[in-house]
């Protein structure tokens, strides 16, 4: 063996030793200094509008927050619109992206109203409401607590007599800042 080969072998051994030692060090450190738990889901949940509408494909805002925390895209919340996407992008250090039109478009927030003359008191909407904003009992007329209604429209489908309608809120609301749907289409 010539000198250069020895040099090379010495170097490789030194480097291997260095990396092995480093690897072992990191391994022990990661064992000794383990930390668990992450408050991320709660932070994500705080950015969501809490309509519990399920338009994102999850049964409520918290489940979507959990999905985002494990990597789902942040643009599936139409009621939150641009504000929510920007807040999420900010929180997660991502670039804001336009709303995914497949999940719907941002509209002015609404409230459900039950036409009390038509309602037959079947309680199906009460079961559907994610925030318990509908009052009533079997065979008795139902009514929506407008102040608690998130306008999620989940009560519309179950109603057998179509007596529920979504109407614009009677109190002032913020201007919506939806991402332009044309932009979504243009970007495919």
């Amino acid at each position, binding site marked *: 063996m010539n000198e250069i080969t020895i040099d090379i072998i010495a170097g490789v051994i030194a480097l291997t030793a260095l990396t092995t030692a480093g690897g072992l060090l990191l391994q022990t450190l990661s064992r000794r200094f383990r930390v668990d738990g992450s408050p991320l889901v709660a932070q994500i949940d705080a950015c969501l*509008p*809490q309509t519990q509408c399920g338009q994102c494909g999850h049964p409520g805002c*918290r489940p979507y927050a959990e999905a985002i925390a494990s990597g789902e895209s942040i643009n599936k919340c139409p009621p939150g619109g641009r504000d929510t996407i920007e807040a999420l992008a900010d929180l997660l250090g991502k670039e804001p992206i336009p709303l995914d039109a497949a999940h719907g478009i941002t509209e002015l927030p609404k409230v459900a109203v039950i036409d009390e003359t038509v309602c037959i008191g079947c309680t199906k909407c009460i079961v559907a409401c994610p*925030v*318990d904003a509908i009052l009533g009992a079997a065979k008795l007329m139902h009514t929506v607590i407008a102040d*608690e209604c998130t306008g999620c429209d989940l009560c519309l489908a179950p109603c057998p007599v179509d007596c529920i309608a979504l109407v614009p809120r009677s109190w*002032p609301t*913020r201007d919506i800042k939806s991402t332009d749907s044309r932009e979504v289409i243009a970007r495919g």
Partner: protein
Amino acid sequence: MAECRIIQSPRRLAGGLQRADGKALSLSQPLMQMNPPVLQLALPDTLEDTPLERWSIGDQIEAGQPLFTTQEGITQACPRTATVESVGTGKTLSGSPTPCRLLNLTVVDPDPPRQPSLTPLPANPDGRTLRQRAADAGIVGLGGGGFPAHLKWQHRLHTLIVNGAECEPFLTADEQTMRLRAPAIWDAVVALMSALSLQRCVLVLEDNKPEALAALQAAYPSVLDAQDVCITVIQSQYPSGAERQLIWLALGLEIATTTSPVEHGIVVHNPVTLAALADALHGYPLTDRIVTVTGPSIVTPGTFQTPLGTPIDLLLSQAGGLRPGHHNVFHGGPYTGWPISNTAAGVRATTACLYAAPVVSQTPSPCIRCGACAEVCPVHLQPQQLFAALTHDQLDEALHVGLSQCLECGACDVVCPSNLSLTKTFQDGIQDHQLQQAEKQRADRARTRFEARNQRLLKRSEADETRRAVRRERSGSALDRIRAARAEETH
């Protein structure tokens, strides 16, 4: 007769505007009495009891009779003896999209009430009596705030400040009141000081009102101890009459924006409010107020003693009407006023001034960060930073740099070389912030309700599960029993 102590305030606002005040315009005429044939009163959204139930069309209401009471306890008296013409909904002064309920009256007797409709109070009423009287007589802040006076007196107070600054150009209602009704103002001061056991009273005047000063000096009552009472003269500067600025000018005390002056024991009243309070002590509820009708578009500007509910149109025509051309009529002064869209609506208790000016279209140019706005800002904000943040959708940044501290005084608009509508932007931003807060609260409520529901459903399904399990077990054992019985039978 005691001499009144007059002090020159050693402080002056850092910032603020010093412009031609235009007050002579409306002060050149004597105070005139308005006698409108009809009245239109806007009913507050929240009423303790509604006149709709009490009055029917054609009923005659005597002047001074209570019309309605708000939730805050303020009772509005009928300004004149009149018959009910209609009760309905209609457009508000500002023309806001939500209509308000209106009470239309046809005046029978145009003269102001001659007899007190409330019992005159004895010389030195106690605090409770005074509060009750102020509420019954409908005394609210007549400077423009409209805050019920008796609510301010619920706090432990030690200092009364009479806000005679009237710093906004063209406004003269306070000055005219101080000139003509100085004794009444002092009467109210005396009553307040004894009833609320105040330690001192400072009457603040701008130095551009020598006549008012002379009138107040001449009417100074001997019962007031000159040790406790003084008139402080401040430099004429807009907006020295803003509450916190005024307190600082008068006492050298800065009130943190998170607290209100009454929490520090300081109550500020407008002289017009005090004059109305003096009337209330003698049994006359608030039925009239003094209104300045002025501005470059008014033919003969002046001050008018006006029954509440007098249609704005009528008041304008009494002042000679508007000059030909396009004009805007503002509720309030040239800086803080907002445009009146419905001039058929009636005068409110807070209508201190109607200001009319030609419509000018100014095209804004970009902000060049010259800092002129910051120089005049009385609270030392950086309006250009607020503006940049708000116009680029950064409400949180605007709030961080003090958006909620903005007085909306409009001084920055006046000096901006780029003609930017700064104050409007800030008002919109503040409103947006309030809506955002409300949304956030709703979202929080929705979250708790959603989670509570999930918990409930979970609990119920668990309960169902256990019940089923119990039943299964029971039915299982029953089966066994049957099997056992059958087995016995067969054996």
